[in-house]
C-alpha cells in the first residue's frame, strides 16, 4: 500500500535530531548572530526596549491565537493564525535578544533547569514585568474588535519596524527587516476588513463603531513617548514613538476616510499614577491572560518540551 509513500515513516525512530527539519528546531534562536551591544548603548536599556517590542508581539499573538477555530470563515481562521505566528516569531527573537543583551532580565529558575531564556521570559515573569502596551492585552471581543485592534496595532508597528531596519543593533535591524513584510500584510488585512465592515451592512457598521469606540482610547499609548525609547533613538538603536505619530495618523486617517467614518473623539486611557503598559502597569486582563499562558510551563520548571 505504501508504494508511493513508503518513506513516510522512515526515520521516525532514533535519536538523531537533524531529521526534525521544522525550521524551528534550534535551542538558541540567535545562534550565529552578532549579539554584541552597540557602542555607547546601555545593555539594560537595550534589553528593556527589546522586551517592550517583544512583549507587544507576544501578547498580541496570544490574543490572536485565541481566534483559532472560531473565525467567521476558514480563510479568516487561517489568516488570523498566520498573523499570530508571525508575531510569535518576532517575539521569540526579541525576547532572546533581550536575554542576550542583559542576562539579568531573565527570571531565575531552579539550578539545572533546561528552560531557555526566551521561555523563562515568556512564562516565568509576572504581569508587572511585562512591558507591552495595554492595547495588546485587553480581552477579545467580536470580529470587528480584532479588526480594529489589528489595524491600530499593525499601523503603529509597521511604522516602527520600517524605521528600525536601520538600527545600529544588528539583531533589531534584522528582526525589523523580516517583520516589515509580515506586518505590512497584517495592516493590509485589517484595513480591508475595516472598510468592508464599515461599508457592509448596518449591523457590521454598528459593530465596527462599537469596537472603535472601545479601543480608540488605547491607540495613543502606541505612539506615546517613553524616556527609554527616546534615549535609544538618540543612540541610533531604537525609534522614538513620537516620530511615528504623524505617519500613523496619516494611515489611520486614510482608512477612516475610505470607510466613511470620522476620527473618534476619545481621550487616551489614563494610567495609574502616570504609569501605563510600558511601565509594567496593566489592565486586569493581563494577569488573567498570563495565568492561562503560563500555567503548564510554571508547573514544570525543570520540564523539557
Amino acid at each position: 500500500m505504501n508504494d508511493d509513500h513508503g518513506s513516510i515513516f522512515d526515520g521516525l525512530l532514533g535519536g538523531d535530531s537533524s531529521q526534525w527539519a521544522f525550521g524551528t528546531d534550534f535551542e538558541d534562536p540567535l545562534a550565529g548572530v552578532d549579539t554584541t551591544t552597540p557602542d555607547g548603548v546601555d545593555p539594560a536599556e537595550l534589553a528593556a526596549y527589546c522586551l517592550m517590542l517583544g512583549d507587544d508581539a507576544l501578547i498580541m499573538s496570544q490574543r490572536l491565537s485565541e481566534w483559532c477555530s472560531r473565525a467567521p470563515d476558514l480563510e479568516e481562521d487561517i489568516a488570523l493564525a498566520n498573523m499570530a505566528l508571525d508575531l510569535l516569531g518576532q517575539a521569540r527573537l526579541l525576547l532572546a535578544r533581550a536575554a542576550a543583551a542583559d542576562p539579568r532580565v531573565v527570571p531565575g529558575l531552579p539550578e539545572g533547569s533546561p528552560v531557555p531564556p526566551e521561555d523563562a521570559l515568556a512564562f516565568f515573569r509576572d504581569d508587572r514585568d511585562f512591558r507591552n502596551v495595554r492595547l495588546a492585552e485587553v480581552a477579545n471581543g467580536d470580529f470587528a474588535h480584532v479588526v480594529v485592534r489589528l489595524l491600530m496595532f499593525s499601523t503603529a508597528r509597521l511604522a516602527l519596524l520600517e524605521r528600525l531596519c536601520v538600527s545600529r543593533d544588528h539583531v533589531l535591524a534584522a528582526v525589523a527587516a523580516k517583520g516589515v513584510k509580515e506586518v505590512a500584510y497584517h495592516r493590509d488585512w485589517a484595513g480591508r476588513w475595516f472598510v468592508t465592515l464599515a461599508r457592509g451592512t448596518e449591523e457590521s457598521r454598528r459593530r465596527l463603531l462599537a469596537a472603535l469606540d472601545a479601543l480608540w482610547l488605547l491607540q495613543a499609548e502606541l505612539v506615546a513617548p517613553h524616556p527609554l525609547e527616546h534615549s535609544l533613538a538618540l543612540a541610533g538603536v531604537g525609534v522614538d514613538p513620537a516620530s511615528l505619530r504623524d505617519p500613523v495618523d496619516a494611515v489611520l486617517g486614510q482608512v477612516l476616510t475610505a470607510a466613511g467614518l470620522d476620527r473618534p473623539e476619545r481621550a487616551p486611557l489614563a494610567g495609574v499614577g502616570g504609569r501605563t503598559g510600558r511601565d509594567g502597569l496593566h489592565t486586569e486582563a493581563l494577569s488573567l491572560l498570563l495565568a492561562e499562558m503560563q500555567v503548564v510551563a510554571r508547573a514544570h520548571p525543570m520540564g523539557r518540551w
Partner: protein
Amino acid sequence: MTTIPAEPDLEARLQAGFDATIARRDRIEPRDWMPDAYRKTLVRQIAQHAHSEIIGMQPEGNWIGRAPSLRRKAILLAKVQDEAGHGLYLYSACETLGVSRAELTGLLLSGRQKYSSIFNYPTLSYADVGTIGWLVDGAAICNQVPLCRTSYGPYGRAMIRICKEESFHQRQGYELLMTMMRGTDEQRAMVQESVDRFWWPSLMMFGPPDANSPNSERSMAWGIKRNSNDELRQKFVDMTVPQADALGVTLPDPGLRWNEERGHYDFGEPDWRELAAVIRGDGPCNAQRLAHRRAAHDDGAWVREAATAFAEREGAR
C-alpha cells in the same frame, strides 16, 4: 451541462466506460460520467473527512493558549492551522462533485453528516498534543496513504498533499513525546497516561471490524477504498509497537504480542460498544465539539453577510 441526445443504451455505455476506468485503476475526473451512488458515496466520505479536519482543530486548539514553550506554541498553532487548510482542500474536492461548502457545513452543524469519532475525546494534558500527533495522525495516515490512489482524481490529489503534511505532524508529535520522556518523572507519567487514554480510540479510527462494515465492500469495488479496516488496523499496530518501545511507553493491551507464524502482532479487541456510543453522539465531547462549531458559525454570520453586501455594492459600482 451539455444535452446528450436520448440513446437507449447510453446509460449502459457510460457505465461500461466508468467500469473500464475503474478496472484500469485510472482516475475518474469531475466531468466524467459516474453512477449516482458513486458520487453520493464520495461526497459522504470526503465531506466527513473535511469535517474531521475542522472539528479536529478543537482538541489540540484547546492547548494553544497553554503551550509550555514558545517553540511548541508555534508548532501547535501551525499544525492546527494546517488542519483548517486540509479542510479547505477537501471541501474544494467535494465541490467538484456539485455540493457547496455552505451546504456541507449545514450538514455538519445539523448532525446529518459525521466526523471522525476520535475528536469526541477530550485533551487533558499537554502530552495529548504529542499523542494525537503520534497515534491519531499516525492512524489517519494509515487510512489516508491508500487514498492517494483512490479512484476519484481531485480527492486523490488532495490526499497526496494532506498525507505529506500529516506525516510531518506525526513526527512532530512523536518528537514532543520523545522530548518529554527525556524530561522529569512527572512528564514521563504524563506521556504514559496520555498514551493509555488514546491507544484504544486510535485503533477504533479504522472503523468497525470488516465483518460489520456495511459500506466497505462497495467502496472497495469502486476503488474509493483500497484496503479493508482490519488490514489497516493491523498495519498500524505493527508500525506502532516498535515506536512505543523506542519511546519507552507501554501500550495498554495485555494481549499485545508478536505472532511469529502470522508475521504480525496479535492485539486485543477494542470496546466496540464505546465506539458505537461515541458515533451515536454520546461520546465525552460530541455536544461540546458541535456547539463550538455552531457558535463560531453563528457568531460569524454577520461578518459573512457584510462581506457579501460589500462585494455586491463594489461590484455594482
